[in-house]
């Protein structure tokens, strides 16, 4: 340490920054993998409107309306 003080973990500032950059890289990689996995699952079985919503699209209920609203929201975002 330039100022002669020690840290709680014993890491220098340079070591902490180096580890932090690696940690952030790993976190970003994790997020990317999760995103790809979710896209694949969406293609397989999209969770909106869900099994009940797709199978019973003709039935009307509060839940169907909520499902429709979420679909509109997703369409708007996409």
């Amino acid at each position, binding site marked *: 340490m330039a100022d002669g003080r020690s840290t709680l973990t014993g890491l220098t500032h340079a070591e902490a*920054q180096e580890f932090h950059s690696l940690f952030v890289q790993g976190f970003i990689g994790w997020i990317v993998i999760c995103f790809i996995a979710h896209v694949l699952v969406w293609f397989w*079985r999209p969770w909106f409107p869900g099994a009940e919503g797709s*199978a019973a699209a003709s039935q009307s209920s509060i839940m169907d309306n909520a499902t429709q609203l979420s679909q509109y929201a997703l369409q708007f975002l996409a």
Partner: protein
Amino acid sequence: MWKIWLLFDPRRALVATAIFAFAMVMLLHFIVLSSSPYYGGFLGWGGGAEVSAVSTPVDSMLS
């Protein structure tokens, strides 16, 4: 933000993060798989061996 590693030991944080993430991933995957035949039907999970009648783009591509 990097100064967090002056407070928390990176080795312990890595081990704790890995254990927590693995446990959470296993828990959530099993919850989803057992939630309904829509997601767990191909394993016979989620209330019966019947696979959901809902057809998705992948189903039509596979069949």
